[in-house]
Protein backbone atom coordinates (compact mmCIF):
# COMPACT_ATOMS: atom_id res chain seq x y z
CA UNK A 1 0.00 0.00 0.00
CA UNK A 2 1.27 3.43 -0.85
CA UNK A 3 2.32 5.96 1.72
CA UNK A 4 0.60 9.36 2.09
CA UNK A 5 1.91 12.34 4.04
CA UNK A 6 -0.19 14.71 6.05
CA UNK A 7 1.29 17.80 7.68
CA UNK A 8 -0.04 17.58 11.24
CA UNK A 9 -1.95 20.75 12.14
CA UNK A 10 -1.56 22.30 15.59
CA UNK A 11 -3.16 25.04 17.61
CA UNK A 12 -0.67 25.99 20.31
CA UNK A 13 0.78 22.70 21.55
CA UNK A 14 -2.15 20.45 20.59
CA UNK A 15 -3.10 18.73 17.35
CA UNK A 16 -6.34 20.12 15.93
CA UNK A 17 -9.38 18.20 14.72
CA UNK A 18 -8.16 19.20 11.25
CA UNK A 19 -5.25 16.78 11.70
CA UNK A 20 -7.73 13.90 12.08
CA UNK A 21 -9.70 15.19 9.08
CA UNK A 22 -6.53 15.21 6.95
CA UNK A 23 -5.72 11.68 8.13
CA UNK A 24 -9.25 10.49 7.32
CA UNK A 25 -9.03 11.82 3.76
CA UNK A 26 -5.43 10.62 3.27
CA UNK A 27 -6.21 7.09 4.51
CA UNK A 28 -8.41 6.60 1.43
CA UNK A 29 -5.28 6.93 -0.70
CA UNK A 30 -2.76 4.96 1.40
CA UNK A 31 -1.13 4.41 4.78
CA UNK A 32 -0.91 7.76 6.56
CA UNK A 33 2.31 9.27 7.87
CA UNK A 34 1.74 12.42 9.92
CA UNK A 35 4.67 14.82 9.69
CA UNK A 36 5.16 16.81 12.90
CA UNK A 37 7.35 19.91 12.64
CA UNK A 38 8.50 20.94 16.11
CA UNK A 39 11.03 23.07 17.92
CA UNK A 40 14.08 21.33 19.39
CA UNK A 41 13.07 19.04 22.23
CA UNK A 42 9.35 19.62 21.63
CA UNK A 43 8.64 16.83 19.11
CA UNK A 44 7.66 14.02 21.46
CA UNK A 45 5.14 16.14 23.35
CA UNK A 46 3.55 17.46 20.14
CA UNK A 47 3.48 13.99 18.56
CA UNK A 48 1.70 12.63 21.63
CA UNK A 49 -1.27 14.90 20.87
CA UNK A 50 -1.59 13.44 17.36
CA UNK A 51 -3.72 10.66 18.80
CA UNK A 52 -6.88 10.59 16.71
CA UNK A 53 -7.56 9.40 13.18
CA UNK A 54 -6.26 6.64 10.93
CA UNK A 55 -2.54 7.43 11.26
CA UNK A 56 0.01 4.64 10.79
CA UNK A 57 3.22 6.55 11.46
CA UNK A 58 4.35 9.84 12.90
CA UNK A 59 7.50 11.42 11.55
CA UNK A 60 8.92 13.97 13.96
CA UNK A 61 11.23 16.65 12.60
CA UNK A 62 12.79 18.99 15.12
CA UNK A 63 14.41 22.34 14.42
CA UNK A 64 14.27 25.81 15.97
CA UNK A 65 14.40 27.16 12.40
CA UNK A 66 10.65 26.48 12.06
CA UNK A 67 9.78 29.15 14.59
CA UNK A 68 12.60 31.44 13.51
CA UNK A 69 12.04 31.39 9.75
CA UNK A 70 8.36 30.42 9.51
CA UNK A 71 6.68 29.16 6.35
CA UNK A 72 9.84 28.96 4.22
CA UNK A 73 11.74 26.74 6.68
CA UNK A 74 8.74 24.46 7.27
CA UNK A 75 8.21 24.07 3.51
CA UNK A 76 11.90 23.34 2.89
CA UNK A 77 12.02 20.57 5.50
CA UNK A 78 8.77 19.04 4.22
CA UNK A 79 9.90 19.21 0.58
CA UNK A 80 13.16 17.47 1.44
CA UNK A 81 11.28 14.73 3.30
CA UNK A 82 9.01 14.25 0.29
CA UNK A 83 12.04 13.88 -1.98
CA UNK A 84 13.52 11.33 0.42
CA UNK A 85 10.41 9.25 1.16
CA UNK A 86 8.42 9.67 -2.09
CA UNK A 87 4.87 9.65 -0.67
CA UNK A 88 2.08 9.25 -3.24
CA UNK A 89 0.36 12.46 -2.09
CA UNK A 90 0.65 15.17 0.56
CA UNK A 91 -2.36 16.65 2.37
CA UNK A 92 -2.09 19.94 4.25
CA UNK A 93 -4.65 22.09 6.07
CA UNK A 94 -6.06 24.90 3.92
CA UNK A 95 -5.34 27.99 5.99
CA UNK A 96 -2.87 30.79 5.28
CA UNK A 97 0.13 28.90 6.70
CA UNK A 98 -0.87 25.57 5.13
CA UNK A 99 -1.51 27.03 1.68
CA UNK A 100 1.82 28.88 1.69
CA UNK A 101 3.72 25.77 2.80
CA UNK A 102 1.94 23.83 0.05
CA UNK A 103 2.79 26.52 -2.52
CA UNK A 104 6.51 26.38 -1.74
CA UNK A 105 6.51 22.57 -1.54
CA UNK A 106 4.87 22.36 -4.98
CA UNK A 107 7.62 24.57 -6.45
CA UNK A 108 10.44 22.73 -4.64
CA UNK A 109 9.23 19.25 -5.63
CA UNK A 110 8.05 20.13 -9.18
CA UNK A 111 4.54 19.06 -8.28
CA UNK A 112 1.02 20.11 -9.08
CA UNK A 113 -1.11 21.66 -6.37
CA UNK A 114 -4.82 21.83 -5.57
CA UNK A 115 -6.02 24.15 -2.79
CA UNK A 116 -9.20 24.31 -0.73
CA UNK A 117 -10.36 20.76 -1.43
CA UNK A 118 -13.50 19.80 0.47
CA UNK A 119 -13.07 16.11 -0.31
CA UNK A 120 -10.43 13.75 -1.70
CA UNK A 121 -11.04 10.28 -3.15
CA UNK A 122 -8.84 7.15 -3.19
CA UNK A 123 -7.37 8.04 -6.59
CA UNK A 124 -6.46 11.56 -5.43
CA UNK A 125 -9.34 13.34 -7.15
CA UNK A 126 -10.15 16.49 -5.20
CA UNK A 127 -13.52 18.19 -4.95
CA UNK A 128 -13.51 21.98 -4.75
CA UNK A 129 -16.39 24.43 -4.44
CA UNK A 130 -15.44 27.46 -6.51
CA UNK A 131 -16.93 30.86 -7.32
CA UNK A 132 -18.36 31.30 -3.86
CA UNK A 133 -19.63 27.74 -3.71
CA UNK A 134 -21.75 28.05 -6.84
CA UNK A 135 -19.78 25.47 -8.84
CA UNK A 136 -18.44 22.03 -7.91
CA UNK A 137 -15.14 21.10 -9.56
CA UNK A 138 -13.39 17.72 -9.57
CA UNK A 139 -9.74 17.83 -10.46
CA UNK A 140 -6.57 15.84 -10.18
CA UNK A 141 -2.89 16.66 -10.04
CA UNK A 142 -1.17 15.42 -13.20
CA UNK A 143 2.50 16.09 -12.42
CA UNK A 144 4.81 15.13 -9.56
CA UNK A 145 3.51 14.38 -6.06
CA UNK A 146 -0.06 15.69 -5.63
CA UNK A 147 0.02 18.51 -3.05
CA UNK A 148 -3.53 19.03 -1.83
CA UNK A 149 -4.75 21.48 0.81
CA UNK A 150 -7.99 20.46 2.50
CA UNK A 151 -10.40 22.94 4.03
CA UNK A 152 -10.95 22.46 7.77
CA UNK A 153 -14.39 21.13 8.73
CA UNK A 154 -15.08 19.64 5.30
CA UNK A 155 -14.17 15.98 5.75
CA UNK A 156 -15.96 14.09 8.51
CA UNK A 157 -13.09 13.01 10.74
CA UNK A 158 -12.56 9.47 11.95
CA UNK A 159 -11.77 10.35 15.56
CA UNK A 160 -10.88 6.85 16.73
CA UNK A 161 -7.83 6.67 18.98
CA UNK A 162 -4.51 5.99 17.38
CA UNK A 163 -1.14 5.05 18.75
CA UNK A 164 1.06 5.48 15.72
CA UNK A 165 4.71 4.46 15.65
CA UNK A 166 6.92 7.51 16.15
CA UNK A 167 10.05 7.97 14.10
CA UNK A 168 12.49 10.87 13.99
CA UNK A 169 13.80 12.51 10.83
CA UNK A 170 16.47 15.14 10.31
CA UNK A 171 15.42 18.67 9.43
CA UNK A 172 17.01 19.57 6.13
CA UNK A 173 16.65 23.30 5.60
CA UNK A 174 18.57 25.24 2.96
CA UNK A 175 19.89 28.80 3.33
CA UNK A 176 17.36 30.16 0.80
CA UNK A 177 14.64 29.28 3.30
CA UNK A 178 16.26 31.31 6.08
CA UNK A 179 15.91 34.79 4.63
CA UNK A 180 12.90 36.14 6.47
CA UNK A 181 13.22 36.13 10.20
CA UNK A 182 10.38 35.98 12.74
CA UNK A 183 11.31 38.15 15.70
CA UNK A 184 8.14 37.69 17.73
CA UNK A 185 4.93 35.66 17.53
CA UNK A 186 1.66 36.19 19.29
CA UNK A 187 -1.03 33.52 19.20
CA UNK A 188 -4.51 34.71 18.27
CA UNK A 189 -6.58 36.13 21.10
CA UNK A 190 -9.06 33.43 22.02
CA UNK A 191 -12.37 34.48 23.46
CA UNK A 192 -13.27 30.97 24.54
CA UNK A 193 -15.29 30.50 21.34
CA UNK A 194 -14.48 27.94 18.66
CA UNK A 195 -12.32 28.93 15.67
CA UNK A 196 -14.53 30.38 12.93
CA UNK A 197 -13.50 28.01 10.13
CA UNK A 198 -13.61 24.92 12.35
CA UNK A 199 -16.88 25.60 14.17
CA UNK A 200 -19.97 23.41 13.72
CA UNK A 201 -22.19 26.42 14.26
CA UNK A 202 -21.51 30.03 13.24
CA UNK A 203 -23.67 33.00 14.26
CA UNK A 204 -22.92 36.19 12.32
CA UNK A 205 -24.00 39.77 12.71
CA UNK A 206 -24.21 42.52 10.13
CA UNK A 207 -25.44 46.05 9.61
CA UNK A 208 -28.65 45.23 11.52
CA UNK A 209 -26.74 44.96 14.79
CA UNK A 210 -26.00 48.69 14.62
CA UNK A 211 -22.71 47.89 16.27
CA UNK A 212 -24.20 46.03 19.22
CA UNK A 213 -23.06 42.39 19.01
CA UNK A 214 -24.20 41.46 22.55
CA UNK A 215 -27.37 39.65 21.40
CA UNK A 216 -25.43 37.85 18.66
CA UNK A 217 -22.70 36.79 21.09
CA UNK A 218 -25.14 35.56 23.74
CA UNK A 219 -27.00 33.47 21.19
CA UNK A 220 -23.70 32.13 19.84
CA UNK A 221 -22.50 31.19 23.32
CA UNK A 222 -25.76 29.40 24.09
CA UNK A 223 -25.18 27.32 20.92
CA UNK A 224 -21.44 26.89 21.51
CA UNK A 225 -20.95 28.70 18.21
CA UNK A 226 -18.25 30.87 16.66
CA UNK A 227 -19.12 34.50 15.95
CA UNK A 228 -18.80 35.90 12.45
CA UNK A 229 -19.49 39.31 10.93
CA UNK A 230 -20.36 40.76 7.56
CA UNK A 231 -18.01 43.11 5.78
CA UNK A 232 -20.32 46.01 6.60
CA UNK A 233 -19.88 45.24 10.30
CA UNK A 234 -16.10 44.84 10.18
CA UNK A 235 -15.67 47.91 7.94
CA UNK A 236 -17.65 49.92 10.50
CA UNK A 237 -15.21 48.72 13.15
CA UNK A 238 -17.97 46.92 15.09
CA UNK A 239 -16.23 43.56 15.05
CA UNK A 240 -12.61 42.48 14.37
CA UNK A 241 -11.70 42.03 10.73
CA UNK A 242 -10.47 38.49 11.54
CA UNK A 243 -14.13 37.48 12.01
CA UNK A 244 -15.28 38.63 8.58
CA UNK A 245 -17.15 35.97 6.61
CA UNK A 246 -17.27 36.46 2.86
CA UNK A 247 -15.37 36.70 -0.35
CA UNK A 248 -12.58 38.80 1.10
CA UNK A 249 -12.80 37.18 4.53
CA UNK A 250 -13.18 33.63 5.82
CA UNK A 251 -15.08 30.91 4.03
CA UNK A 252 -17.10 28.81 6.44
CA UNK A 253 -19.12 25.68 5.91
CA UNK A 254 -20.68 24.78 9.27
CA UNK A 255 -23.62 22.51 10.04
CA UNK A 256 -25.62 25.60 10.97
CA UNK A 257 -25.11 29.22 9.91
CA UNK A 258 -27.26 31.91 11.52
CA UNK A 259 -27.12 35.31 9.80
CA UNK A 260 -28.47 38.15 11.93
CA UNK A 261 -29.14 41.53 10.38
CA UNK A 262 -27.17 40.64 7.24
CA UNK A 263 -28.85 41.46 3.93
CA UNK A 264 -26.72 39.01 1.98
CA UNK A 265 -24.60 40.73 -0.65
CA UNK A 266 -22.94 38.25 -2.99
CA UNK A 267 -19.66 38.98 -1.18
CA UNK A 268 -21.12 37.57 2.01
CA UNK A 269 -22.86 34.61 0.36
CA UNK A 270 -19.56 33.55 -1.18
CA UNK A 271 -18.25 32.88 2.31
CA UNK A 272 -21.17 30.92 3.74
CA UNK A 273 -23.51 29.48 1.16
CA UNK A 274 -22.13 25.96 1.42
CA UNK A 275 -23.27 25.79 5.06
CA UNK A 276 -25.51 22.77 5.61
CA UNK A 277 -28.40 24.68 7.20
CA UNK A 278 -28.89 28.44 6.91
CA UNK A 279 -31.04 30.53 9.23
CA UNK A 280 -31.68 34.21 8.57
CA UNK A 281 -33.02 36.81 11.00
CA UNK A 282 -33.70 40.21 9.43
CA UNK A 283 -36.15 43.07 9.81
CA UNK A 284 -36.24 43.59 6.06
CA UNK A 285 -38.49 40.98 4.37
CA UNK A 286 -36.75 41.76 1.06
CA UNK A 287 -33.25 40.85 2.30
CA UNK A 288 -31.77 38.67 -0.48
CA UNK A 289 -30.32 36.21 2.03
CA UNK A 290 -33.86 34.94 2.73
CA UNK A 291 -33.73 33.36 -0.77
CA UNK A 292 -31.20 30.77 0.39
CA UNK A 293 -32.41 30.38 3.99
CA UNK A 294 -33.78 27.07 5.23
CA UNK A 295 -35.50 29.03 7.96
CA UNK A 296 -36.08 32.77 8.01
CA UNK A 297 -37.49 35.03 10.68
CA UNK A 298 -38.66 38.46 9.56
CA UNK A 299 -38.14 40.43 12.72
CA UNK A 300 -35.84 42.53 14.84
CA UNK A 301 -32.81 40.54 15.93
CA UNK A 302 -32.89 42.33 19.30
CA UNK A 303 -36.28 40.66 19.97
CA UNK A 304 -35.80 37.35 18.18
CA UNK A 305 -32.33 36.40 19.44
CA UNK A 306 -32.90 36.90 23.20
CA UNK A 307 -36.11 34.87 22.97
CA UNK A 308 -34.32 32.11 21.06
CA UNK A 309 -31.41 32.21 23.51
CA UNK A 310 -33.78 31.77 26.44
CA UNK A 311 -35.68 29.04 24.57
CA UNK A 312 -32.52 27.02 23.97
CA UNK A 313 -31.40 27.56 27.55
CA UNK A 314 -34.77 26.27 28.80
CA UNK A 315 -34.58 23.19 26.56
CA UNK A 316 -31.17 22.33 27.98
CA UNK A 317 -32.84 22.37 31.40
Amino acid at each position, binding site marked *: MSNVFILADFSGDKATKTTAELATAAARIGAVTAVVLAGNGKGAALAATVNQGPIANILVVESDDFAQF*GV*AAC*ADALANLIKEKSPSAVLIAS*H*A*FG*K*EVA*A*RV*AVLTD*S*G*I*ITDAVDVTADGTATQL*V*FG*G*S*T*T*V*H*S*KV*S*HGTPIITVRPNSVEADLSDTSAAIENATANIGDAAK*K*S*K*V*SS*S*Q*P*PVKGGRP*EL*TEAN*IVVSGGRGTNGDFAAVEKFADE*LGAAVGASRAATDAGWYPHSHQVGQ*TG*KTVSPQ*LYVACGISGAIQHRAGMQTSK*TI*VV*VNKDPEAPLFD*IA*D*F*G*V*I*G*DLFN*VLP*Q*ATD*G*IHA*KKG
Partner: protein
Amino acid sequence: MKIAVCVKQVPDSWAEKKMVNGVLDRENVDAVLNDLDEYAVEEALRIAEAHGGNEDGGANTVTVISMGPDRATEAVRKALSMGANDAILVTDSALAGADALATSAVLSKVISDGGYDIVICGTESTDARMSVVPAMISARLGWAQLTFASKVSVDPAGSVSITRVTEAGVDEMSAAFPCVISVVEKINEPRYPSFKGIMAAKKKTIEQKDLAAVGVSGQSAWSQVNDATPRPARAAGIKVTDEGSGGSALVDFLAEKKLI
Protein backbone atom coordinates in the same frame (compact mmCIF):
# COMPACT_ATOMS: atom_id res chain seq x y z
CA MET B 1 14.39 51.58 -4.86
CA LYS B 2 13.00 49.54 -7.68
CA ILE B 3 9.59 48.31 -6.61
CA ALA B 4 7.44 45.90 -8.60
CA VAL B 5 3.75 45.21 -8.03
CA CYS B 6 2.13 42.05 -9.39
CA VAL B 7 -1.49 42.51 -10.42
CA LYS B 8 -4.14 40.36 -12.03
CA GLN B 9 -7.21 41.17 -14.06
CA VAL B 10 -10.16 39.18 -12.73
CA PRO B 11 -13.86 38.89 -13.51
CA ASP B 12 -15.84 41.49 -11.58
CA SER B 13 -16.75 39.85 -8.28
CA TRP B 14 -20.40 40.74 -8.90
CA ALA B 15 -20.41 38.92 -12.24
CA GLU B 16 -21.71 35.38 -12.64
CA LYS B 17 -18.75 33.11 -13.33
CA LYS B 18 -18.85 29.96 -15.46
CA MET B 19 -16.44 27.18 -16.31
CA VAL B 20 -15.98 26.29 -19.99
CA ASN B 21 -13.89 23.23 -20.86
CA GLY B 22 -12.41 23.13 -17.38
CA VAL B 23 -11.25 26.73 -17.23
CA LEU B 24 -12.91 29.93 -16.13
CA ASP B 25 -14.72 31.68 -18.97
CA ARG B 26 -12.97 35.07 -18.88
CA GLU B 27 -14.25 36.35 -22.23
CA ASN B 28 -17.88 36.92 -21.43
CA VAL B 29 -17.64 38.72 -18.11
CA ASP B 30 -16.72 42.24 -17.06
CA ALA B 31 -13.10 42.29 -15.99
CA VAL B 32 -11.49 44.53 -13.41
CA LEU B 33 -8.24 44.96 -11.52
CA ASN B 34 -8.32 42.42 -8.67
CA ASP B 35 -9.62 44.36 -5.64
CA LEU B 36 -6.95 42.96 -3.36
CA ASP B 37 -4.16 44.07 -5.72
CA GLU B 38 -5.19 47.70 -5.29
CA TYR B 39 -3.86 47.51 -1.74
CA ALA B 40 -0.53 46.31 -3.14
CA VAL B 41 -0.36 49.17 -5.65
CA GLU B 42 -1.25 51.67 -2.92
CA GLU B 43 1.37 50.27 -0.54
CA ALA B 44 4.06 50.41 -3.25
CA LEU B 45 3.21 54.05 -3.96
CA ARG B 46 3.23 54.94 -0.25
CA ILE B 47 6.62 53.29 0.23
CA ALA B 48 7.98 55.20 -2.78
CA GLU B 49 6.46 58.49 -1.58
CA ALA B 50 7.87 58.05 1.92
CA HIS B 51 11.39 57.66 0.55
CA GLY B 52 11.88 60.27 -2.16
CA GLY B 53 8.95 59.70 -4.49
CA ASN B 54 8.53 58.07 -7.87
CA GLU B 55 7.94 61.19 -9.99
CA ASP B 56 10.37 61.99 -12.79
CA GLY B 57 13.77 62.20 -11.20
CA GLY B 58 12.46 60.63 -7.97
CA ALA B 59 14.46 58.10 -6.05
CA ASN B 60 12.15 55.16 -6.81
CA THR B 61 10.22 53.46 -9.56
CA VAL B 62 7.04 51.43 -9.26
CA THR B 63 6.55 48.94 -12.08
CA VAL B 64 3.33 47.00 -12.57
CA ILE B 65 3.78 43.38 -13.69
CA SER B 66 0.91 41.29 -14.97
CA MET B 67 0.14 38.23 -17.04
CA GLY B 68 -3.06 37.93 -19.01
CA PRO B 69 -4.78 38.48 -22.34
CA ASP B 70 -4.61 41.77 -24.32
CA ARG B 71 -7.62 42.91 -22.38
CA ALA B 72 -5.60 42.91 -19.14
CA THR B 73 -4.13 46.25 -20.30
CA GLU B 74 -7.30 47.80 -18.76
CA ALA B 75 -6.45 46.54 -15.26
CA VAL B 76 -2.79 47.47 -15.72
CA ARG B 77 -3.83 50.94 -16.88
CA LYS B 78 -5.84 51.39 -13.69
CA ALA B 79 -2.73 50.66 -11.59
CA LEU B 80 -0.81 53.17 -13.73
CA SER B 81 -3.51 55.78 -13.22
CA MET B 82 -3.09 55.37 -9.46
CA GLY B 83 0.51 56.47 -9.97
CA ALA B 84 2.78 53.56 -10.95
CA ASN B 85 5.51 54.49 -13.43
CA ASP B 86 5.31 51.79 -16.07
CA ALA B 87 4.18 48.23 -16.68
CA ILE B 88 5.11 44.89 -18.17
CA LEU B 89 2.29 42.65 -19.39
CA VAL B 90 3.03 39.10 -20.50
CA THR B 91 0.51 37.93 -23.08
CA ASP B 92 0.76 34.62 -24.91
CA SER B 93 -1.91 32.27 -26.19
CA ALA B 94 0.11 29.40 -24.69
CA LEU B 95 -0.73 30.81 -21.25
CA ALA B 96 -4.50 30.36 -21.53
CA GLY B 97 -5.55 28.11 -18.65
CA ALA B 98 -2.17 28.53 -16.90
CA ASP B 99 -2.20 27.43 -13.26
CA ALA B 100 -0.56 29.18 -10.30
CA LEU B 101 2.71 27.29 -10.87
CA ALA B 102 2.97 28.40 -14.50
CA THR B 103 1.95 31.95 -13.58
CA SER B 104 4.56 32.15 -10.83
CA ALA B 105 7.24 30.85 -13.22
CA VAL B 106 6.53 33.60 -15.74
CA LEU B 107 6.27 36.37 -13.13
CA SER B 108 9.48 35.18 -11.44
CA LYS B 109 11.45 35.43 -14.69
CA VAL B 110 10.19 38.95 -15.35
CA ILE B 111 10.98 39.95 -11.76
CA SER B 112 14.45 38.47 -11.75
CA ASP B 113 15.31 40.17 -15.08
CA GLY B 114 14.02 43.52 -13.77
CA GLY B 115 16.43 43.67 -10.83
CA TYR B 116 13.81 44.85 -8.32
CA ASP B 117 14.45 45.36 -4.62
CA ILE B 118 10.98 44.47 -3.48
CA VAL B 119 7.93 42.90 -5.07
CA ILE B 120 4.48 43.56 -3.61
CA CYS B 121 1.39 41.42 -4.25
CA GLY B 122 -2.17 41.17 -2.95
CA THR B 123 -2.88 38.14 -0.76
CA GLU B 124 -5.09 36.43 -3.31
CA SER B 125 -7.12 36.99 -6.45
CA THR B 126 -10.87 37.15 -6.04
CA ASP B 127 -11.38 34.54 -8.78
CA ALA B 128 -9.06 31.62 -7.96
CA ARG B 129 -8.59 32.52 -4.29
CA MET B 130 -5.55 30.28 -3.83
CA SER B 131 -3.16 32.68 -2.00
CA VAL B 132 -0.17 30.79 -3.31
CA VAL B 133 1.52 32.93 -5.97
CA PRO B 134 3.56 35.21 -3.65
CA ALA B 135 4.99 32.17 -1.79
CA MET B 136 5.73 30.47 -5.12
CA ILE B 137 7.59 33.51 -6.46
CA SER B 138 9.62 33.67 -3.25
CA ALA B 139 10.48 29.97 -3.49
CA ARG B 140 11.40 30.19 -7.18
CA LEU B 141 13.64 33.23 -6.78
CA GLY B 142 15.07 32.25 -3.41
CA TRP B 143 13.99 35.68 -2.13
CA ALA B 144 12.73 36.36 1.38
CA GLN B 145 9.00 35.83 1.89
CA LEU B 146 7.16 38.50 3.90
CA THR B 147 3.49 37.69 3.34
CA PHE B 148 0.07 38.58 4.82
CA ALA B 149 1.45 41.93 5.96
CA SER B 150 -0.85 44.34 7.78
CA LYS B 151 2.03 46.80 8.19
CA VAL B 152 5.18 47.29 6.12
CA SER B 153 8.21 49.43 7.00
CA VAL B 154 10.99 49.77 4.48
CA ASP B 155 14.52 50.96 5.10
CA PRO B 156 15.78 52.02 1.65
CA ALA B 157 19.26 50.94 2.73
CA GLY B 158 18.03 47.41 2.10
CA SER B 159 15.65 45.90 4.61
CA VAL B 160 11.94 45.45 5.25
CA SER B 161 10.00 44.58 8.38
CA ILE B 162 6.36 43.61 8.46
CA THR B 163 3.58 42.57 10.79
CA ARG B 164 2.13 39.30 9.52
CA VAL B 165 -1.50 38.65 10.42
CA THR B 166 -3.14 35.26 9.87
CA GLU B 167 -5.53 32.98 11.77
CA ALA B 168 -2.43 31.57 13.48
CA GLY B 169 -1.73 34.91 15.16
CA VAL B 170 0.48 37.95 14.69
CA ASP B 171 4.17 37.71 13.78
CA GLU B 172 6.78 40.42 13.48
CA MET B 173 9.11 39.55 10.60
CA SER B 174 12.03 41.14 8.79
CA ALA B 175 14.34 40.49 5.87
CA ALA B 176 16.95 42.07 3.65
CA PHE B 177 16.30 43.02 -0.01
CA PRO B 178 15.26 41.44 -2.29
CA CYS B 179 11.96 40.23 -0.92
CA VAL B 180 8.42 39.29 -1.88
CA ILE B 181 5.70 40.97 0.17
CA SER B 182 1.97 40.33 0.16
CA VAL B 183 -0.35 42.80 1.84
CA VAL B 184 -3.74 42.14 3.42
CA GLU B 185 -6.83 44.18 2.86
CA LYS B 186 -7.04 46.99 5.44
CA ILE B 187 -3.33 47.80 5.32
CA ASN B 188 -4.32 51.04 3.62
CA GLU B 189 -7.10 52.81 1.76
CA PRO B 190 -6.31 52.60 -1.96
CA ARG B 191 -6.52 55.98 -3.66
CA TYR B 192 -8.93 56.68 -6.49
CA PRO B 193 -7.14 57.59 -9.68
CA SER B 194 -7.29 61.35 -10.15
CA PHE B 195 -8.25 62.89 -13.51
CA LYS B 196 -4.61 63.92 -13.89
CA GLY B 197 -3.54 60.38 -13.05
CA ILE B 198 -5.91 58.89 -15.63
CA MET B 199 -4.64 61.27 -18.33
CA ALA B 200 -1.00 60.61 -17.40
CA ALA B 201 -1.58 56.84 -17.45
CA LYS B 202 -2.57 57.02 -21.12
CA LYS B 203 0.97 58.12 -21.97
CA LYS B 204 2.74 55.58 -19.76
CA THR B 205 4.41 52.57 -21.31
CA ILE B 206 2.94 49.10 -21.07
CA GLU B 207 5.61 46.81 -22.42
CA GLN B 208 3.75 43.80 -23.78
CA LYS B 209 5.82 40.63 -24.13
CA ASP B 210 5.17 37.08 -25.28
CA LEU B 211 6.79 34.03 -23.69
CA ALA B 212 9.70 34.05 -26.12
CA ALA B 213 10.50 37.66 -25.22
CA VAL B 214 10.34 36.82 -21.51
CA GLY B 215 12.56 33.82 -22.11
CA VAL B 216 10.53 31.07 -20.48
CA SER B 217 8.77 28.18 -22.10
CA GLY B 218 5.08 27.94 -21.31
CA GLN B 219 4.32 25.21 -18.83
CA SER B 220 0.94 23.56 -19.02
CA ALA B 221 -1.22 23.27 -15.92
CA TRP B 222 -0.13 20.53 -13.53
CA SER B 223 -3.63 19.74 -12.40
CA GLN B 224 -6.50 18.79 -14.65
CA VAL B 225 -10.18 19.52 -14.17
CA ASN B 226 -12.30 16.40 -14.75
CA ASP B 227 -15.63 18.15 -14.51
CA ALA B 228 -17.24 21.35 -13.28
CA THR B 229 -20.94 21.53 -12.53
CA PRO B 230 -23.01 24.41 -11.24
CA ARG B 231 -24.51 23.49 -7.91
CA PRO B 232 -28.28 23.53 -7.75
CA ALA B 233 -29.50 26.83 -6.37
CA ARG B 234 -30.62 26.67 -2.76
CA ALA B 235 -34.35 26.93 -2.48
CA ALA B 236 -35.84 29.23 0.11
CA GLY B 237 -37.37 27.31 3.00
CA ILE B 238 -39.75 28.34 5.74
CA LYS B 239 -40.18 32.05 6.44
CA VAL B 240 -42.05 33.36 9.45
CA THR B 241 -42.81 36.91 10.56
CA ASP B 242 -41.98 37.68 14.18
CA GLU B 243 -45.15 38.69 15.97
CA GLY B 244 -43.79 38.00 19.42
CA SER B 245 -42.85 34.35 19.01
CA GLY B 246 -40.26 34.42 16.20
CA GLY B 247 -37.48 33.38 18.57
CA SER B 248 -39.46 30.40 19.81
CA ALA B 249 -40.28 29.37 16.25
CA LEU B 250 -36.55 29.44 15.53
CA VAL B 251 -35.84 27.22 18.55
CA ASP B 252 -38.53 24.75 17.37
CA PHE B 253 -36.94 24.64 13.91
CA LEU B 254 -33.46 23.98 15.34
CA ALA B 255 -34.84 21.27 17.64
CA GLU B 256 -36.69 19.61 14.77
CA LYS B 257 -33.49 19.59 12.70
CA LYS B 258 -31.65 18.17 15.74
CA LEU B 259 -29.27 21.12 15.67
CA ILE B 260 -29.77 21.71 19.39
